Every structure is written in C-alpha cells, then in structure tokens.
C-alpha cells in the first residue's frame, strides 16, 4: 500500500453476459480492487447515476466504508459531473474500466476526462508496481499475455484491463451498512445519444468462403487442393550447427526471442 496518495475508482453498472441482469462490472470491480491495494480504506469510489441502484451495494461490499454517488437521471452524460467532482479535489490516480458493459460502451470516458483535465492516460493497466517521488511505474497488459512497463507522472488516469487482479468477493452485510454520499450536480442530457435507434443485437452473418475461379479447372483445384504452405526451405545435409543457426535466425527475425 502506498501512503498519502488519493485514488479514485469510477464504477458503473455492469451487465451479466448470459442473463443480462445488472451486476458488478468486471473491469470496474478490478479498478476498485486495484484502488484498494493502492490506497486501502482511503480509496474513493464514485458512481454517476442512480443512488438507489442495488448493484452499488456489491461494490460497497468489497470493504468500502463509503461510496460517493453523483446523482443524475438516466440518459445523462456522466462526463460533466465527474469533471466537476475531480477538479475540486487533489486526486493523484483515477482508475476506470476499459469499456462500460452498458450504454454505448465506446470506452471514451477516461480519454475525455484525461483530455479535459490535461492528465496522461495509461490504457489497459494490469498492475501498478510502485508509486514514489510523484512518479508511478505501471504494467500494461498487451495481447498474448505480454506485459510492458511504463512510467508516468502523477496525476494520471488509468483504464484497468481484464488481466488485472480479479475483484474480491463482496460481502452482503457490510455492503448494506456502507454509507452512501449522494451529491447533486447539474446533469446534462446526452442529446446526440437520444437520436440513436437502439435494438437488440442481430447475430452477424458468417463470412462465406467465395471461390473466385474463372474456369472449371480452377474451381476444381480450389476445391481439392491441400492447404500447403509451399516454397518452404528444407535443410537436409547441413551440419546440425548450421541447421540450428538457420532456425535461430528465423526466430530472431520474427522477434520472438528477446
């Protein structure tokens, strides 16, 4: 745990992928978990929306003494209220998920906040290694399980990837007992989004394999040919040192050996 830093985790209402019921959002839960390891009990967890939403108790049940709700009605833009909330305080780190599980889920919120506040944004964080002397060293989650170390000056905004530490279990009783601070701000309706037509997602058509052969012989070849790479290099009579060197050169050229 790092002393004396102010960490804010932003949480939203998730959606269960099978049942579609409201739940603790996967990545937001991880953002709270990361916030708890960074700041412990002094973590501030903020939600913009309906304070009566029962799912918020699931976040509170992770061991939070209190939770801040910026009250606004549905269809409102969360950006202005969060902006005014963050500007007032001296915050060092803001943690969010990469994408919300409801609404547009464009993942733009952390970017817009970072742009407005003029802070750097660190995308897809897996772990915060350490924070000292006003600088943080974080690990980014890359595809294929790779990690990249990046240093960034405080204050910054980070979106938390699915590779981060899984959110702890929530406890029902402490969740109910947690104290909710409800703040009323001026909420702005998202005009552009109200123009959209929203429907249940249609299954996307599968791409059909089209054989664009001009002649019957070509079609026959396309239907019967074995998918072979062709033109591969074969080493037979070289010494085993040369063979190994050829393989090693290919591995280095493809940058899989570091």
């Amino acid at each position, binding site marked *: 745990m790092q002393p004396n830093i102010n960490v804010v985790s932003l949480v939203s209402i998730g959606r269960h992928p099978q049942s579609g019921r409201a739940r603790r959002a996967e990545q937001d839960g991880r953002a709270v978990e990361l916030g708890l390891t960074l700041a412990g009990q002094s973590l501030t967890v903020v939600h913009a929306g309906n304070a009566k939403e029962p799912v918020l108790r699931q976040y509170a049940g992770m061991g939070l003494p209190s939770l801040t709700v910026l009250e606004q009605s549905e269809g409102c833009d969360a950006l202005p209220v969060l902006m005014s909330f963050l500007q007032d305080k001296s915050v060092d780190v803001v943690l969010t998920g990469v994408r919300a599980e409801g609404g547009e889920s464009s993942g*733009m919120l952390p970017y817009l906040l970072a742009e407005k506040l003029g802070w750097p944004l660190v995308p897809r964080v897996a772990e915060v290694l350490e924070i000292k002397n006003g600088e943080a060293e974080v690990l980014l989650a*890359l595809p294929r399980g790779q990690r990249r170390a990046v240093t960034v000056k405080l204050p910054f905004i980070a979106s938390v990837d699915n590779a981060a530490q899984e959110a702890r279990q929530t406890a029902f009783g402490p969740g109910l007992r947690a104290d909710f601070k409800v703040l009323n701000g001026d909420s702005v309706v998202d005009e552009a989004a109200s123009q959209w037509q929203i429907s249940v997602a249609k299954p996307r058509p599968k791409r059909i394999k089209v054989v664009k052969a001009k002649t019957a012989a070509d079609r026959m070849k396309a239907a019967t040919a074995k998918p072979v790479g062709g033109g591969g290099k074969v080493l037979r009579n070289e010494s085993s040192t040369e063979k190994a060197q050829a393989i090693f050169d290919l*591995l280095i050229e493809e940058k899989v050996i570091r």
Partner: protein
Amino acid sequence: MSDLSSKDSSLDNLLRRDPRAEWIARNRLHPLHNEMLQIGGVEVRGPSGLLRKNPHVIGFIGPNGIKRIDRTNTSSASLGDKKRSSATKETQLPLHIVENPDFYIMVVADMVGGRLTGHDKDILGLAHQLVAKRNGAVTLVCFGDNKETQCDLAGVDRLVHLQGEIYEGFAPEARLNALLQIEAQYKPDYWLFPDSVHGGMDLACRLSARLGERLAAQAWQVNAEHTVCRGASASQDILRDTPRILTLLEECGDAIDESRHQVLPMAIDGIEQTTPAMVDKGLIAVDSNAVPLAEAEFILSAGNGIHNWDQFHAAAAALGATEGASRVAVDDGFMPRARQVGASGTWVTARVYLAVGISGAIQHMQGIGQCDKVVAINTDAGCDMVKRADLAVIADSEDVLAELIQLAQHYSLSKGQEEKSDAA
C-alpha cells in the same frame, strides 16, 4: 476518376486462325496443298470449331521408305507453336489509379509484426466502399517497421509511413501528434481504426478526444449515411449517423482482391513532438508457460520424435517458448492434456510454431492453421509437417535442440553484456 487500365492478357490466349491456310488444306487440288500439309502447322477446324485431324498426313516417310509415326511426341515441338499458352502465367490485376484526389480516407492500421492483419485488410476494403466511385484516395497510415510487400493488392492508394525511434514500442502520444499533423494537412473525410487491443482503439479514442469529435465504436455496418455499432457489451445494435472517426470490428467489410493500387508515398510536414508524459520501459519477461496456449505467440511443440524430455523442457525455457504437444505425446503421458495442440486440443494462433518430431496428422494441422510461420524438425523429409513448414530441418531432434539451447544461451549472455556496457 478511377481508371482501370491494363493490357487484356486474354488476347494472348486467343487462337489465331489462318483462313487461307485452312482453305488450302481442305482443297486437295490446290497446287500448294501438299506443301501446306508438309509444314504441318495448320490446325484444321471444322465449322463448329472442332479440331479435325487428317490421319493420312500423320507421321513421315522414313529413310527406308516406310511410314513412321512418332507417338512419343518428342519431335513435334514445331507443331505446338500455335497452342494456347499454359495457364501458369501470372494474371496482372487491373491497376486502380487515383490522380489528384478530392478527398482522403485515412486507415490507421495495427500492422502487428509489421504486416497488415486480416482486420486491417477488411478495413481497407470498407474504405473503398466509402469512396464509392468518387475520386478519393484510401490512405494507409502505419508506424514503425513495414514488412508488408502486398500493400498494392490490399487496396492502398496512398501510404503515410512514419518511422523513427519515437514511434517504436508504446508511443501513443507521439503517434497522436503525427495523426494531428495529418489531420491539419489533409483534412480526411474519414478516420478508420481497427477496434483492437493492438492499439487501434487507444489511438482512435485519443484522436477523438483531442479533436472533440464523437466517434462510433465497434461499428460493423457502415455506409456514407448510417452506421450500426455494437453497444452494451455486444448486446445492442445502435443505428446512428456516420461520424468522421470510426473504430471497426473484424469482418466489417470485404478485403480488396480484384485490383492493384498505386501505394504512392505521401509527405507529412514537420510533426511537432512534445515530451511524452509516459515513458516506455520496454517489455517485461513473462513466464511463457503461464500464457494460455491458445494465445501464445511462440510455441515449441513436441511429438513422438522426442526422446529426451528434460532437454525439450530446457529448450523451451532457453528460447522463452510456450510448450505444446501432439496427441501422441499427451497420450503417452509425457505432457499434460492441456498442452495438446490440434482438433481435440487447443487451436493455436501463434506467430511462430516450432514443431519438433511431429509428422503432422491432419487433426494437428487443423489446430495450427492460423499460425504464420511454421518450423519443423523431423527425421522424415516426406511428412506433412515438412510440406507445410516455412523452414524444415531434416535431422534428429536431440542434436538440433542441443545446438539451439547453446545458441539461445550465447544470445542472452551477449545481450546482457551489451546492456551492462550501455549502462556503464
């Protein structure tokens, strides 16, 4: 003004007929009849175009006065000069030319490993749908290494290739500055990004936030007026007006496959770079066996040809490869079931797949269908894995693995020393 200009190669394949020669060949009373048949070059075709053969003129009279017929066709080379050229000739696709384009569509590609991904190619295809016969240029913006040799076939009219140390590795701020300069200079009609974890989505969000324009995320049906996006963790479709910045899902369009494009480089004037707030400290070594097999980048896979299993594990550790196995190795109990590659195991997507002692059953080949580069070490030169491999080594696995371990150790030692001398 898209102009399809190319030489029609089908003209070369046309059969040229000489009506006069055919007429002489038909007319036995013609004074030139015998000479014309002696030349033999005349193919006589009936009215329906059917090839007619005169059995009386087949062959020649040998030195002893006996008619000889050469059925091996060795001396008939002179007869074949009018035959159709064989189909092996490479067909040249028509070239799509864009001169002085009225507008640009920028496609910022991921270029994983320096090559266009299937996702990138789909987006280039979609960009051409958005051009829709107008005089616009589809421009590929790529950063860092460009190993792609087939940009012209993927539909790239113009290319902005930004190279240099500042764009290497994790450099979203430097890349964003470059995109802003492109925006100022060319004012593109659309900015298209892949909605991917390789940095496409990140860059799109940064550009959108900086320009203050709302983007459409996870779009999958796009035309000039409307866009359909996935929302709410892919449970909803959102129909909206098409914005200028889009991040696109996979298979959003069809890749270009019937034309060549110019790939003309475009110049970008002085890009203003600022000191980045985030400093890249490089990739971190991860435990390669903790990476799920399905998404591992580099797999060392073992089959029936491995006898020294300790050496195999040592090789995987030295090379930093994720371990895989064929079904035989798993059934014999040398590797856990979770490591099996193939139809009843895991379908892998590795960039480099190093198969040691695996002959390549069809179920195994299905499992490695998506791998880019396959390297085989095998004693049997005729096996399927060697045929599929980009590099095949015909040798006993034990010797080659021993050499590979040594090479890897030397490499890491020399690299460690370099870093030490850099630090000093």
